[in-house]
């Protein structure tokens, strides 16, 4: 397949607000089930091990007309819950047999309760992850939460979810994470070869595709991309941060690149990159998943940083590792975690003399010209500043 063909396929999946791929996957075999999950992190390995399809639910984007959803929320609450409600009340999520709501923020947390009130016939679970990273305390709590989720999924599946099932799923997701790391490494090395809107679409495809197909898709893309030589532009290299939950319009990502910025790292779809190393495939699989969360998971605004000295370190390391020249904070309006975190991250960058700029967006932002101008000015200032 060519790059264009792969990207077109991903774009079709991105545009499909009816989750037809999920419907087809379920229809292909009697008894198949699909479980939706909101950002930022759930252990998809458990869903897969129960024979079900994990489906990332990321709101309605800029193509969904939100009519009912707005009636559920005040004007000062972000967009993603209202468009997610819209997807549900218009029947688009009927293909899901359950929904997981991770401990991302108060809005996603309360959305789990709204689901409990409105969609009582489905498996609905708020999934708590520890903010305590002592393996004997937070780790023990988390292992038990994983066990409890495993039991609920087993009940829905009507069969046991064995350790071997889980180990096999962990192996598949390890492979998927490796492929994604290759994609991100390639973009970091040659960003002109891997435009960020394409990376985004590839990652979004992984929210609805079976994991092995997604791994193959990324590998096919990498193979095709290396054969396609694209022009190098005089762009600066930036890390974008803050897009971990409510999704940016695709046009926003295009605008950033058109404004003269190569994105060399991001926080899209963190569920697929959350665990930074391979999870062991021998031993107790729940403990392995728990240890991975405690020992080598990503950092984002939804996660507590136990030591003051470490605040912002993860972002700075990303800047250094990817030879970025600056950071763009793109935060959804009314996003408490991202917006409360931002001043601390900005201070950490300032201390390291790393330039940054910041703006807000909503999933349905239509006016991208101001963002393009701001990103363009930022890119120009980096170039001038670097030259000096």
């Amino acid at each position, binding site marked *: 397949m060519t790059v264009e063909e792969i990207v077109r396929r991903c774009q079709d999946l991105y545009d499909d607000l009816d989750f037809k791929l999920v419907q087809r996957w379920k229809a292909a075999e009697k008894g198949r089930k699909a479980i939706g999950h909101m950002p930022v992190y759930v252990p998809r390995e458990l869903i897969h091990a129960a024979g079900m399809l994990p489906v990332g639910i990321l709101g309605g984007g800029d193509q969904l007309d939100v009519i009912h959803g707005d009636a559920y929320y005040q004007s000062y609450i972000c967009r993603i819950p209202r468009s997610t409600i819209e997807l549900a009340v218009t029947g688009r999520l009927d293909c899901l047999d359950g929904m997981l709501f991770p401990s991302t923020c108060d*809005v996603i947390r309360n959305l789990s309760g709204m689901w409990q009130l409105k969609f009582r016939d489905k498996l609905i679970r708020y999934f708590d992850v520890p903010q305590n990273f*002592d393996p004997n305390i937070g780790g*023990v709590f988390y292992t038990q939460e994983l066990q409890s989720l495993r039991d609920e999924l087993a009940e829905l599946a009507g069969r046991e979810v064995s350790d071997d099932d889980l180990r096999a799923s962990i192996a598949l997701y390890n492979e998927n994470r490796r492929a994604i790391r290759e994609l991100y490494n390639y973009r970091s090395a040659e960003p002109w070869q891997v435009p960020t809107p394409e990376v985004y679409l590839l990652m979004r495809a992984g929210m609805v595709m079976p994991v092995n197909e997604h791994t193959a898709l990324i590998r096919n893309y990498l193979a095709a991309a290396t054969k396609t030589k694209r022009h190098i532009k005089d762009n600066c290299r930036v890390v974008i941060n803050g897009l971990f939950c409510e999704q940016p319009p695709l046009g926003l990502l295009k605008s950033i690149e058109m404004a003269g910025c190569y994105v060399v790292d991001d926080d899209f779809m963190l569920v697929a990159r959350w665990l930074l190393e391979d999870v062991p495939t021998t031993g107790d699989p729940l403990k392995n998943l728990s240890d991975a969360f405690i020992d080598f998971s990503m950092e984002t605004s939804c996660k507590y940083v136990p030591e003051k000295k470490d605040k912002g370190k993860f972002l700075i390391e990303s800047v250094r590792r990817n030879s970025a020249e600056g950071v763009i904070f793109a935060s959804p309006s009314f996003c408490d975690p991202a917006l409360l975190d931002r001043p601390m991250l900005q201070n950490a960058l300032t201390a390291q003399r790393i330039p940054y700029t910041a703006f807000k967006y909503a999933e349905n932002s239509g006016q991208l010209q101001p963002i393009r101008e701001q990103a363009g000015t930022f890119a120009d200032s980096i170039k001038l500043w670097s030259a000096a």
Partner: protein
Amino acid sequence: MNIAANQQPDVQKEDSMLLQKAMINANYEALASAHDEGKKISSTFVPGNLNELLMCFDLVRNLPEINALQAGMRKKSGGYIMEAERGGHSEDVCTYVKSDLGMMAKGQVGPSGKPLPTPDILLLSYTGCFTFMKWFELVRDQYDCETAMLHVPYQADGKVTKNMRKFVVAQLKEQVIPALERVSGIKFDIDRLRGYLAESAKAEDDLVWVLQSAKNRPTPIDAYFGGVYYCGPIFTAFRGTKDTTAYYRALRDEVAARLDLGLGPVTPDGAMDEERIRLVVEGPPNWTHFRDFWKMFYDEGAVVVASSYTKVGGVYDFGFRHDPEHPLETLADYCLGCYTNHSLPARVDMLTTYMDEYSADGFLVNSIKSCNSFSAGQLLMLREIEERTGKPAGFIETDLVDPRYFSPANVKNRLESYFQMIEQKKARGNARTAA
């Protein structure tokens, strides 16, 4: 108590309110002089606060939300918030946080005008609100002191599981208590904790009696505007002290006396004459225009008979009491049980019960821009409660401490329309009964 006799307040206040004011002022004095007196200071949040535990280490307790609330009532929060926004904090986020940070940026002078010293330990009891976690990190960024964090899991399925309780107790034992010992230099004494917990339980009994007095008609209390005063000591730096036990006994006696005389609640303009509308209110109040806001209710004969905000620092009216026999487990249960740590269905059940048990005529949401923990989902809660009870529901929007988000004309207009709707519905109901 004869405090009222010795002072000339510009508005009518219950003696208990004045006693509480004296307690709060004394705490600010204690904070201001703590370091001079060789005492250590803890800073912690209201929901899930571990006051009894902190007292075991002789720590003077500072509560940032109370500082923000007090700054709001004293018309200082607007300036603090704008200071924080000038410093890069988004206009979209919690104004308690910004008021606190703005106050720090402006020299860390507390609401009483006395300096608020740097805390020696920051204790985050992370209960029912993610913003606390970020607030804690932001405050930590300003100080160089010890920190302890307590992650309290969310009661998503309406129950406390063994795993949740075990997790909280393990954090207390292995991390929080050792940190408090380190900072204070005082060894933990579990019997001392038991003593404080026993005091807490006595005060909790009296608080519940006071809150449930609103089941009477007329209610002798307003369970929202008055209620925020009543829950003040038990939610903050005083739970577990003998003063607090005495305060709640005095409050109970005061309310019992009003009940015996068939009197309504005391408002800033005196005792409320006629109780026309009984309400259950969900959500925090606005602090910047607290008295104006209250007046919009009592001028129309509307009284609040039950509220969710008076459960934000602990839900006691469904049976929970601090239990000295199980000191750490009871602290865990307390933290897990605070109102905003309950799921939306559990909150709907609780409010529906209030509507029934307190014979309410309507359900009102005061939706707060700052507080997603409360606000996200309130419109669905409103519909559910309206459907379950058949009583009219109303919705207004204000903010905690940002004066820019309190629009008196809009709020008054909405409230008046809502009260008219309730009265019309009541009149129709009475007419049907008479027929």
